[in-house]
């Protein structure tokens, strides 16, 4: 019985990943607008069931763009804690991966995203094309699905 339920849950998670878009500070908005562009007619992620959740509490996947600044550090952690389990994090763009041109040594910056929250998928690009972001989310879905199988 549980086997069936778990399969159903895994299927549902695969088909309905809700994302929460989180600009983490130190970024140029380029990745933000590309993430939003992924929702719009040309790319339309809704056909995969991906929905932009208004609140982190409704989300499954956290899409983080940009580097973490000292101002946003606590807020990033708080938003991450608000996402209910199981959750996945996608880091979009060069800034989120490594800091890009801004480096990591500069005074207002606290570090890259993976120093504060566990990141599951990285999408390189400055900014990545919306297609790459979609692929990144698909990759994160696989992780969510795998987690369901395990539990």
């Amino acid at each position, binding site marked *: 019985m549980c086997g069936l339920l778990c399969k159903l849950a895994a299927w549902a998670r695969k088909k309905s990943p809700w994302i929460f878009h989180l600009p983490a500070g130190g970024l140029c908005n380029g990745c933000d607008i590309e993430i939003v562009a992924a929702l719009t007619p040309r790319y339309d992620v809704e056909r995969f069931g991906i929905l932009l959740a208004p609140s982190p509490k409704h989300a499954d996947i956290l899409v983080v763009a940009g580097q973490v600044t000292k101002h946003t550090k606590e807020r990033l952690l708080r938003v991450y804690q608000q996402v209910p389990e199981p959750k996945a994090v996608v880091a979009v763009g060069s800034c989120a991966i490594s800091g890009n041109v801004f480096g990591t040594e500069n005074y207002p910056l606290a570090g890259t995203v993976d120093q504060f929250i566990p990141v599951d998928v990285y999408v390189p690009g400055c900014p990545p094309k919306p*297609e790459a972001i979609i692929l990144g989310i698909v990759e994160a879905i696989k992780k969510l699905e795998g987690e369901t199988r395990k539990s």
Partner: protein
Amino acid sequence: MKVNILKEAAKYFVKPATVPFPAVQPHFPKKFRGPPRYDPETCIGCGACAHVCPSDAITVTTKDGKKILEVWFGKCTFCARCEEACPVDSIKLMEIYSTPSPNKFDFVSRVEHDMVKCRICGKYFATVKHVEWIIKNVREKMGETVSISELKNYLMTCPECRHKVENVPSFRKLLMRVLVKEVK
């Protein structure tokens, strides 16, 4: 009252603007700036790309007689300045998007080069291919003015040794000859 928007919506209703993405690969224009890749065949290991990189995504490390050039496009700005700077068109920005991965150190393209030992002090300082490339270019420009052995002597000496007093006269002779040839 809402005529225009209804008309437009009806148009879209019949024909959505969505590109069926996973089935149809996206369009990449010519000279699209995708992830940079080294061509290990042509790369000479000069390090010009690392010099111009605005985000220090390209690192040059020398270790045990090997020079490793590594571009980590997790840090790249995709500005194509390395492509511009490369004297042999070895580093190229691919016309594809970079695929996401759970490991951020997957986004790496690297080349390894053997290095040349300094003729005098025995320190590693340049790559073999770089020296060969310089010799080739100098020979093309200069013809037979300088002999290969002389040129090799010069190029296989590390910058520090070149500046040492005891080594200066011989190198100066070579340079003078090159300059005289230029003036002619």
